[in-house]
């Protein structure tokens, strides 16, 4: 049944499951030119292609906003649900029960997640819903043309809004506080890191939160703003250089990585994320360390990127339900409707 679309010409490059990169693409983007979100969409396409994940084994979910529009621009051959503002997590939670073999690739923004959707975001994280949860974070409302979001930094001045005096929400900290099992931050201007983190996130069983600073070229790209390209480039302090090693492949370390400088984190499917330390002995499996590091980075005005926290081995939401092997949505009446005799018993029980 896993049929591929007919290929045009023989020399189109295909991956191990016989699909070309085109099979992972979506409609042309209608977001602004230069929007960080487009670059993230491209990395999603590449990561899935390189990991040989078939489009039918993922489902896209999103809320409302510029970020939530972006699932249109990748994975045409995957099912998708573009729901309500701030409510992507609940739809994904229910939507992933239909076929437990499917992984969610969910797109949200800082408004969608940290303002209107804060509750659902934290509860999905707490439940460990089996999805990659990407927050395309630009500190601003784009579709309604430039209002502050809850992640906007203090002192930011926007054209019509004046200056923001309210403390921002740190999405990664919130996720860790909600017992997240995978938390990473990246910067849309660092496509290699985005891709490697995406691959690790796709291999993680449970909610993998990716907070990707994705500058808004139209409404929030002042040189000194946290969510701008210029600031991000200058202040980005990667925790590690990251290489993702897929499961079953022999783990080959790059030649320049020295013993003692690397830390391997094995993900549930046997794949490994290899972290090369930059400047300190950072342990991403330590919750307290992760929070401390985020706090220190904020004081030092640094944009820390990389894998901040991971707890592999925790069951995902669908795991905890111990479902039958057949996807629930393929069960037939015989599996679902109890027998006539059982109803007789029930009636006899009703006094």
């Amino acid at each position, binding site marked *: *049944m*896993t*049929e*591929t*679309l007919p290929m045009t010409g023989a020399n189109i490059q295909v991956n191990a499951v016989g699909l070309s990169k085109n099979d992972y693409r979506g*409609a042309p983007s209608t977001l602004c030119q230069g929007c960080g979100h487009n670059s993230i969409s491209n990395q999603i396409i590449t990561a899935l292609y390189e990991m040989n994940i078939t*489009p*039918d084994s993922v*489902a*896209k*979910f999103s809320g409302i906003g510029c970020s939530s529009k972006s*699932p*249109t621009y990748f994975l045409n*051959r*995957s*099912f*998708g*649900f*573009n*729901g*309500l503002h701030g*409510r992507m*997590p*609940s*739809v*994904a*939670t*229910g*939507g*992933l*029960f*239909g*076929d437990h*073999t*499917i992984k969610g690739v969910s797109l949200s923004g800082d408004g969608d997640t940290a303002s209107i959707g804060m*509750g*659902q975001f934290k*509860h999905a994280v707490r439940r460990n819903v089996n999805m990659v949860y990407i927050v395309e974070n630009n500190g601003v409302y784009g579709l309604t043309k430039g209002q502050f979001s809850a992640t906007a930094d203090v002192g930011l001045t926007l054209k019509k809004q004046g200056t923001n005096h309210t403390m921002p929400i740190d999405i990664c900290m919130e996720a860790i506080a909600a017992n997240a099992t995978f938390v990473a931050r990246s910067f849309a201007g660092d496509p290699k890191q985005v891709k490697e983190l995406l691959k690790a996130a796709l291999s993680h069983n449970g909610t993998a939160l990716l907070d990707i600073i994705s500058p808004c070229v139209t409404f929030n790209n002042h040189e000194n703003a946290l969510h701008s390209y210029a600031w991000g480039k200058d202040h980005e302090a990667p925790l590690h250089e990251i290489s993702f090693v897929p499961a079953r492949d022999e783990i080959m370390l790059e030649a320049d990585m020295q013993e003692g400088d690397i830390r391997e984190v094995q993900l549930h499917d046997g794949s490994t994320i290899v972290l090369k330390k930059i400047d300190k002995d950072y342990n991403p499996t330590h919750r307290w360390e992760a929070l401390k590091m985020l706090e220190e980075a904020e004081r030092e005005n640094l944009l820390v990127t990389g894998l901040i926290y991971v707890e592999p081995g925790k069951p995902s939401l*669908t795991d905890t*339900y111990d*479902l*039958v*092997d057949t*996807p*629930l*949505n*393929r*069960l037939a*009446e015989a*599996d*679902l*409707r*109890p027998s*006539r005799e*059982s*109803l007789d018993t*029930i*009636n006899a029980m*009703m*006094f």
Partner: protein
Amino acid sequence: MDKRIVNDFSITVGTVNGSGSSTANNTILRALFKMGIPVSGKNLFPSNIQGLPTWYTIRVNKDGFVARHDEHEVVIAINPGSFARDLAEIQPGGAFFYADDIKQPITRTDISVYPMPIKQIVREQVDLPTNLRDLVSNMVYVGILAQMIGMDLDKILAALTFHFKGKEKPITMNFNAVKAGAEWAKANLEKKDPFYVEPMNKTDGLIMADGNLAAALGSIYGGLQFAAWYPITPATSVAESINEYLPKLRQRADGKHTYAVVQAEDELAAIGMAIGAGWSGLRSMTSTSGPGLSLMTEFAGLAYYAEVPIVVWDVQRMGPSTGLPTRTSQGDLTFVAFMGHGDTQQVILLPGGVDECFEFGWKALDLAERLQTPVFVLSDLDMGMNQWMCRPFQYPETSMDRGKVLWEKDLEDLKGIWGRYQDKDGDGIPYRTVPGNKHPLAAYFLRGTGHDDYAKYSEEVPVWLKNMDRLKKKHETAKKYVPAPVLHTTKGATIGILAYGSTEAAVQEARHQLNVQHGIKADYLRVRALPFTAEVGKFIAKHDLIYVIDMNREGQMHQLLTLEYPASATRLVSVAYGDGMPASAKWVREGILAKYKRPVATKKPDRVKKTGTAKAAKKAAQAKPASRSRKAAVTSSKKKVVKKSSASKARK
């Protein structure tokens, strides 16, 4: 005591919330039911865990009329806080039992008064652990009442055995208290009131259950696969019953599960999850009440517009706002009918009894998948949380209807040519695929934004209009699938009564009273769904005056009928009232009488129409056997009632 009143009165217990009296009251109810006497029990409780007054009122009626009775004939007062009120409200000639440690003046001389030394009787139970004395003390009044009105003690034992699931220790302990009460009463009280119960056979073949349990079971027999919910009175026990029965009824040898139930963080998430699951191809539901329903509104609009099957049980309570959380109402009807912003029309089912809660449990899941739309089932607190006698639950007579779903094989046959929102069959219902379908052309991107036949984003005017027209057509198609109303006719009827939901018992009784006491004969149509089916229009066309019974302030069913049948608006008379109490025959009857106009006999509908209606009535009755339990009880008893009507009238 010159005349005995047998099997026709109410028993009201005034007690304190959280004092454990519900076991005692349920025991009385169940014992009466086991004696074969038609009976109902209503728990009139406050929004409180412990301490506020609460009442339990039982209606016994040999003729099968079991709506709440406005008059209190037998009263058991064990709450000092409501003592004065309980005493004041009892009917002249009534029997007043009270706990004798309540030292409050009793000035009434028109009732029979029985002090009950409950504490003393409990003290004499030497085997009873001190910590259980308060709980078991409620059983003493059960025993005293049993002795005084003639309840069978073995039926009380049966009720206790049921309640304690056969566990010997609590059964014995409680039954000993019952016996002690009965023995004390036998030795010390002299019967002065006329109220007696005697065994009958009118509950043969019936069961006793509450609507929320029936809803849960019905959904499970409908193949429920996913439920998400958030606790709210009075809907909580729908989800709790699902949690209790799903594991038992869908057990598998390998111990794995074919379903998932999630307690969500709020109602927004509950319906969001249910919609996600519905989209992913699961039979999915959520259950809630007014405030939760308000939160679900945006999602309800999305599911309507994006065409996601889902069932929402709304166990109505009294609004607006937090309102009266533990009181019943039919106040959500118009809200749900248009639930969502923009042009929205929702499909609604209106069960009229506990057995119909079961039936609509599985039917709603069929309908939602057939129509690819949310289906709302509007029950209420009275039906959902109180014990009702009803027909045994009937096994679904049809196979599960999974609607228009395309799998890999179907798409191969179609060569992959399909559009998610194409109206291929001309009935407004499109075809859908669900995640996991591995055909390369199976996927689509569902969105709440404007979309074309292929689910692609579109702001084009013709595309928008076409889609909205199709949705309207689909709503029209729904009329073919929703349950038809139930028609009860009376020879020589001059008026029509139109009602729905839990007012059924009150309307049936009021209809009988109007006939016997006032000579007004009425046909009765019980509407069971929105959109209105053809039978509703015919009923309205056939009658000069149609009294529309609503348990809300605005007359919401009346409003909807007026919108649907504007030309008949002047013949639709609204009888609307909502105070949070379960409907009684009195308010229905008096509501009709207050607006009663003798129909002008000039313009009678022609014969053709009449036969048409009769045929529809017959069809409705044949097609929907579910409503027969109470109907059967009523009609079979009617003959006797007519004969005895002078006697019963004399008493009133």
